[in-house]
């Protein structure tokens, strides 16, 4: 029983955890807010013992590398990582919202539990505002033209400054991604990862390209010159493909697991190899050109198959074999006792290509919607960042197919939401107070904290050193340079997302907005403005955000902030 002794030696108890980590909150907030958006600053991360140096400004790469000792902040990071896993976008905004709420809540006089309940109410209100058709911060997506989709991809690509995309490159990569995505969308709008992203260093970004089919690294053929490959073909010059996911080296499940004894002269290995050979002969009988094996093929079987003129690809791994399955239409063979005829797929052609001094096999079949995206970059970190951004863009494109709504980016929707909440709150004040049994001043403070965190985040997505302005009734945000000596075209200022144009005189600073003065909203004006937004977003390139990932990030941020505010003590194990 002595083995059951707990390894844990000591538990440390902290009380009033929140006050101690204010420093940490500020630091993390600073890191997060300065990383956001196209004007964000790139962070260099290296561990204390001098490991790999990572350059990044995206949450997907930043968060796993941070080692956080404070449990409360760890909670936040876990929550952000959970969100990223699902949407791969909006991680930094999530953290920034959450940290802003927590920091200002700590400085406010309102009781934390009260704030938590009010935050819940405000979030509910925010969701109802976001859902309503009269919210001026969103546009509906029409799939009939690609302007909006291109805008979304460009917004995502340009949000990470490390990629160093020039305007030309941005256009190039965005159109690559959109083209690639659209060609892999199937009838039912469901395309599970049909785009394989390959990266390579040493060439400039604008040489990136996409090819239909799969590119498979194949070092068995020398990369010095292109070799013509010959295959057994059937009619229409098709190449039959068998995809084997079982191991072809003899360690399969076919025989029962257990101990075996054998006489000295008995050769069990031979029996198993013969068995696999019988299966292979069955395949050969169907004039198969290529056998692709996810695992290893036994050398004896290899040489047997090569003699019959069959091309072999082995050790593919599970990831690539799922792509191959999509491309060839083959059903994976996981048991040698099956009838192979039903499981075969086919390809139009297999070519040997050399890209960036490496040997690849190019598997092709028309109209299957499986594509490879080849990304080049001058150095490793840039390529990694670019790859992540492209993955984000692709997953965002997949998400918007389910929710055909876009948000006005560049901080516009946040500003608009903040002021809409303030307006709605004035209308609903009495009923909210009744529900929560809080004081009126607490409600005002909570509302201020909530809206301020939205505005702060909106502010951080742009250039520092500008003044945030807004205008009635859309409440989009305008960034006016503080030192604007050149009053050249103050007549027509465009907002951050590029959808609303206003004259300088109509703008006011976000701090000066008095909600009461505008309590009488002219519905007609707003409706007109919203239909204008819709039109502009379809004709010109604007800054837009994905609706579902951002809204879910906001929800997550508020609930995480509530959790952090709710912590009284903290137990930490020390070994």
């Amino acid at each position, binding site marked *: 029983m002595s083995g059951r002794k707990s390894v844990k030696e000591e538990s440390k108890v902290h009380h009033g955890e929140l006050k101690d980590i204010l420093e940490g909150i500020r630091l993390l907030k600073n890191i997060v807010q300065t990383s956001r958006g196209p004007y964000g600053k790139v962070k260099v991360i290296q561990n204390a013992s001098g490991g790999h140096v990572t350059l990044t400004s995206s949450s997907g790469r930043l968060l796993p590398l941070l080692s956080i000792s404070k449990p409360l902040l760890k*909670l936040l990071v876990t929550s952000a990582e959970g969100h990223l896993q699902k949407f791969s976008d909006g991680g930094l905004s999530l953290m920034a919202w959450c940290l802003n709420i927590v920091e200002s809540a700590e400085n406010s006089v309102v009781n934390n*539990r009260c704030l938590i309940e009010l935050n819940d109410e405000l979030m509910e209100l925010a969701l109802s505002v976001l859902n309503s058709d009269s919210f001026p911060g969103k546009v509906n997506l029409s799939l009939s033209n690609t302007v909006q989709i291109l805008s979304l991809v460009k917004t995502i690509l340009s949000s990470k400054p490390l990629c160093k995309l020039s305007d030309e490159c941005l256009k190039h990569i965005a159109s690559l991604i959109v083209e690639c995505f659209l060609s892999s969308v199937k009838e039912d709008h469901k395309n599970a990862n049909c785009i394989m992203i390959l990266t390579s260093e040493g060439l400039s970004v604008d040489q990136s390209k996409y090819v239909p089919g799969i590119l498979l690294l194949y070092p068995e053929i020398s990369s010095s010159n292109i070799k013509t490959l010959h295959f057994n073909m059937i009619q229409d010059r098709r190449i039959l493909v068998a995809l084997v996911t079982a191991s072809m080296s003899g360690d399969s499940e076919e025989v029962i697991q257990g101990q075996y004894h054998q006489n000295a002269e008995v050769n069990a290995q031979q029996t198993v190899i013969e068995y696999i050979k019988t299966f292979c002969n069955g395949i050969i009988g169907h004039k198969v050109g290529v056998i692709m094996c996810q695992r290893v093929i036994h050398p004896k079987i290899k040489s047997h198959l090569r003699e019959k003129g069959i091309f072999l690809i082995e050790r593919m791994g599970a990831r690539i074999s799922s792509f191959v399955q999509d491309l060839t239409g083959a059903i994976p063979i996981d*048991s040698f006792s099956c009838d192979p005829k039903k499981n075969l797929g086919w390809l139009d052609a297999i070519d040997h290509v050399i890209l960036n001094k490496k040997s690849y096999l190019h598997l092709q079949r028309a109209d299957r919607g499986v594509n490879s995206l080849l990304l080049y970059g001058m150095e490793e970190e840039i390529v990694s960042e670019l790859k992540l951004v492209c993955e984000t863009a692709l997953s965002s494109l997949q998400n918007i197919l389910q929710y055909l709504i876009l948000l006005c980016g560049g901080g516009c929707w946040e500003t608009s939401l903040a002021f809409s909440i303030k307006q709605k709150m004035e209308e609903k004040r009495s009923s909210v107070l009744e529900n929560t049994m809080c004081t009126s001043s607490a409600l005002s403070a909570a509302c201020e904290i909530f809206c301020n965190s939205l505005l702060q985040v909106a502010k951080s997505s742009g250039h520092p050193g500008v003044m945030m302005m807004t205008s009635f009734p859309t409440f989009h945000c305008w960034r006016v340079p503080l030192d604007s000596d050149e009053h050249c075209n103050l007549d027509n200022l465009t907002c951050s997302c590029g959808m609303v144009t206003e004259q300088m005189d109509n703008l006011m600073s976000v701090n000066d907005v008095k909600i009461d003065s505008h309590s009488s909203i002219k519905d007609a004006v707003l409706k007109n403005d919203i239909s204008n937004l819709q039109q502009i977003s379809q004709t010109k390139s604007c800054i837009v955000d994905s609706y579902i990932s951002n809204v879910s990030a906001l929800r997550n941020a508020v609930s*995480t902030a509530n959790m952090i505010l709710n912590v009284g003590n903290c137990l930490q194990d020390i070994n």
Partner: protein
Amino acid sequence: MLRLFRLQVTGMESKLLDFSKSLQICKALESLVSRGFGPQGLQTLMCTSTGQVLMSNNGATIFNALHIGHPVGRLVVDAVNQMTQYTGDGSKVFIIMLTDMLQQIDLRYSERERGELIRGITHFNQHLFPRLQQHVLKHSRTCNLSSDKKAFCESIEGVLRGVISPHYSARVVESLTRVVMSSLNFDLSPSLFLEQISIMTQNFSQLAIKNIGSSISDSATVDSYIIQRDFVTNFEMCSMDCVKFVVLMCSIEGHINSEDGESIYLSTNDSLGNFMKYQRERAEKFASLCNEQDITLVISSMGIPKYCLQVLSSQKISVIHYVEEEDVEFLSQMCQKSMISEFPITKFMEKEIFLASSCKRVIMNGRLCVQVIPSGEQLAPFTKTLLLTAPTDGLCAQLYTVIHKAIKAVYLSLNPPCLLKTTEDSENCTSFTLPGGASFELLCRAFLVKISRNKIHNKDMQMAEILERAFLTVTRILYRNVSETTMNETHNFLVKLSYIQNETDSSTDSFKCFGFDRRGTVKDMEKEGVLESLNVKFHVVSCVLNLLSTILKTNGIIGIKNA
């Protein structure tokens, strides 16, 4: 042998246990959870050395995370664990009461008088405690499923709300209460309803699925039984409405127990080939057996090798394998059918064939699962599965604990208190509840004050006084936690307390239970819809008294050191 003996002797250590040490330990435990008591309680964040984070306001969870070394601490934590296993709720009230009582004893009684107290506790348990229970029962809210369904539903809702509210904010509490309520079927007969709740309590791990999603209020219910496995082959053949299936606990191919040294002997070159052929024939026989009896689905707790799957799929039989053993057992228990543990010889027995009205693939938590809706005559009353959603894994675990706790409390509220066990017939489903917000404590206190004014036995007197003060402390801590300002806290509390006392004294015939709501205002908590299970409360009090007498009786620690 000699060495061993010596080791034992030198490794032993005997120590006198000082009473104040026990008090000190309880105080430390109390200080850890007292801020978390009540609807405005603060949560405790637990962080393991590997960096996993768990948040909870559940007393038992917090104590277990502590890994206390001192024997008295262990004694207390074990008592809490044992109690919460039965009640689910009440761990914080337990520790608050215990600490307060220990403190009073430490202040007011000398060591010699403590022996007297132990007898006092026994006496109290025998004579006064039943009277106290009778008194509380008189004022409790009792309602019956068959006679007043609406009130019955409300009382269950109230208990759920009462248990969940310390853990989440008001809006989340409401939505969770709604979800749990919707998972219960109130149209059943009383005895079946009781069985339903009891199944939920005992098999909660099967009937709740942790789902990592965006927010806790996204939690929902889904119909019937979910097998959380995606090891499914050719399932598309099985989307028909009526499915016959068997549950396998053994492997089709048989197995070799390597640990016992069982092995297969290969005598000639053909042996292995023949053996493989035999195995295949066996699988084919199994498939044909299934076919003869129209069985289209096989659920297996073990993995089925690929070649068997191939054979089964060629006969159009679907397979779900690697299903957890607990899940399989639960399914067979609910359907009242038996599992197959040996390879069938001629055919499957009638009691081995399960029926399902539908069986389909669903995606939960980004994972493929299988939803089975069993049917049949002897089906036990279970209807819905809870889908508990929270943003992270740790928060899911917390939600799971809280909801389990709430269901336990509901189950207990339906059990008649021990006093009534003989008189009431078990066929009827009655709930015994009391308004929350410390109403129980105030009620008990009023009773104890009243009887100590009358002449009672001296021994009882002491205990009544100690218990009365403990109840008051619980109330005060609740008020401290819910009141918004710390200014004049004690004064405000006393004002409100005397207000409650006056109210209860003046209106004797139409008795009202008053308590504190989540902002610290005095309210009739029954109207607020926050109720507490009477049984839980009684059990907590008796557990505290039990442990108290154990601590009073203990005077030494004998420890065996690791040499």
